[in-house]
């Protein structure tokens, strides 16, 4: 088991290295120069930066310097913001994105499992039709549309009540987090609902559920101990990619709801061609996602004993 975790972590490091390399060379092939824009940087600063990152050196040398800094956990200094290290930007703003993301994932997973199981149990009856209709909506409507619509709903609601029931945008309290997390998790929740439904349908008609019935196990216990745990396995499998989908989707939702998360800096950095911030956030997000996928895979072993012994 531990050997498996270590093996996966080593593989993860290789993956992150690929991401870092690809980002580095992609950035170097983007036309433009962040040091040549309006907010001209003094010759001295320019010289310092060139020296630090070897910007006057051949690209191979630059790449080695970049890797060396990266391996020490140093993502570098922002090219466009004064006195800002990329590490600081991540440290300050990633927790906001992470809380939003975790809330969204919890919402998506809990909702997906619950609604998926419900639709399977009520197959081809009214609850199934209603939920599946909403699922199709959730999958096909992009999150920025849902985000704007939910803001409109909140505005209407708040003005109807007369006070602020739920804030329309911004960040700070748990109330600020609820709606953005729901909007962010909606697409994934819809996807997980569909997955859970088909997996649950398979489990409902399986031999071991029939065995449980023949033992006289009450329906609630069959649901909890025999059906849910087996039906949930495919959902756990896609939870890794689902986390990826939610975190990347976070950029848009953060922007719409004016949430000071990392996504906003990422988008800004791309617009301003801020090399270090782009590379830093990309590598950081990449590493985070790789790590989450590994966590999910390890988690899988705890739920399915067949995966554990390998």
């Amino acid at each position, binding site marked *: 088991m531990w050997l498996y975790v270590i093996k996966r972590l080593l593989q993860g490091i290789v993956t992150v290295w690929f991401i870092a390399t690809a980002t580095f060379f992609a950035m170097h092939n983007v036309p433009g120069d962040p040091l040549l824009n309006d907010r001209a940087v003094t010759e001295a600063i320019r010289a310092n930066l060139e020296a630090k990152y070897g910007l006057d050196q051949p690209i191979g040398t630059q790449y080695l310097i970049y890797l060396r800094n990266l391996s020490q956990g140093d993502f570098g200094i922002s090219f466009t913001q004064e006195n800002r290290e990329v590490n600081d930007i991540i440290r300050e703003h990633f927790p906001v994105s992470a809380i939003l993301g975790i809330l969204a994932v919890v919402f998506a997973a809990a909702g997906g499992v619950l609604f998926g199981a419900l639709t399977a149990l009520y197959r081809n009856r009214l609850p199934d039709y209603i939920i599946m209709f909403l699922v199709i909506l959730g999958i096909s409507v992009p999150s920025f549309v849902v985000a704007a619509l939910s803001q409109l709903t909140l505005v209407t609601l708040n003005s109807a009540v007369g006070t602020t029931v739920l804030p329309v945008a911004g960040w700070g309290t748990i109330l600020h987090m609820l709606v953005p997390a729901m909007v962010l998790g909606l697409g994934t929740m819809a996807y997980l609902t569909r997955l859970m439904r088909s997996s649950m349908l398979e489990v409902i008609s399986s031999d071991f559920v029939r065995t449980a019935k023949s033992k006289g196990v009450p329906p609630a216990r069959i649901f909890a101990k*025999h059906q849910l745990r087996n039906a949930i396995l495919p959902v756990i499998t896609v939870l890794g990619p689902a986390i990826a989908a939610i975190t990347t989707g976070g950029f848009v939702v953060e922007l719409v709801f004016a949430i000071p998360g990392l996504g906003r800096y990422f988008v800004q950095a791309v617009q301003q061609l801020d090399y270090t911030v782009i590379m830093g956030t990309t590598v950081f997000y990449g590493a985070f996602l790789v790590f989450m996928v590994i966590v999910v895979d390890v988690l899988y072993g705890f739920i399915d004993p067949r995966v554990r012994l390998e």
Partner: protein
Amino acid sequence: MSGVALAEETATPLLRVENLAVEFDTYGGIVKAVRGVDFTVDQGKTLAIVGESGCGKSVTVQSMMGLIPMPPGRITSGSARLRGNEVLGRNRLDGKEIRGAEIGMIFQDPMTSLNPTMTIGDQIAEPLQIHKGFTYRQAFDEAIGLLEMSRIPEAAKRARQYPFEFSGGMLQRAMIAMAISCKPSILIADEPTTALDVTIQAQILDLMQDLQRETGMAIILITHDLGVVARMADEVAVMYAGKVVEHGSVDDVFYRSAHPYTLGLKEAMPTNDPTKQHELQPIEGSPPDLFAPPPGCGYCPRCPFAMQICDTRHPEDSFLKEQHFSRCWLHHEDSPSKPADLYFKDSDP
């Protein structure tokens, strides 16, 4: 109706099933899978229900256990009485759950019939916790004892393992341990050895017989293997197209077969007796369409002895003697030829 009724005066059997009929709604129409089945099971005895695939043997017992999905399934008539009390369509009897506590059941494929994410011990302990109010600890200890009873070595260690760590034969032993955990009065075994190797089959059958001797439970054994029937059964019910066509003691059914279908089954069975030059005789044709069951005897188109009446009217039960009956016109007093003359022309009965 029936010879079963004759026995009623003597004693109430452990289980009596009468006129049980089950239908399924499908896109193709209504399938009449079971069309009036009667049988009885006595304490400590084994009843074998034999017949080919699709004859309704599994549906018969599953409808008794409430295991048929309804809809599309539907029990249209009949009764099943356990010690005189109706159990059909009911879950509880005298405040006691029927499934698991009164009737235990094991299935054909042990590989898929156990929950892959629960330990064997937990699965055996589950009915004890539910029906007997055992704590988890007590139930798990009892489960280890039951595994030992089912002759699983290192039971304490095995109880903590998962189904994928067991072989097929071991899983079937664990299934048996689970089915008898609450000391049911009846064990239903739905083709318990079909998915297993021949050598393992014998071990499982021996185990079932030994446990029957120890606990005094009755066994309903569903199979299409006449070898298994000969080895295990006290009584045999032969089913064809959703009906019992012959019912009697194992000796009567094997040596004094009364229904042409039983005879056909025997002819189709391989033998390893070197003195008998016996060529396997398959039964030609296929069973009737149960979407539209024929008005007469279902076996008529395949029966070598079929008469005119067989095609149009369903035969009444004919009692050859008490506890041995056959549904066949040949036994009617107006039948021109006697079954004994037809069946046993060139061999002694």
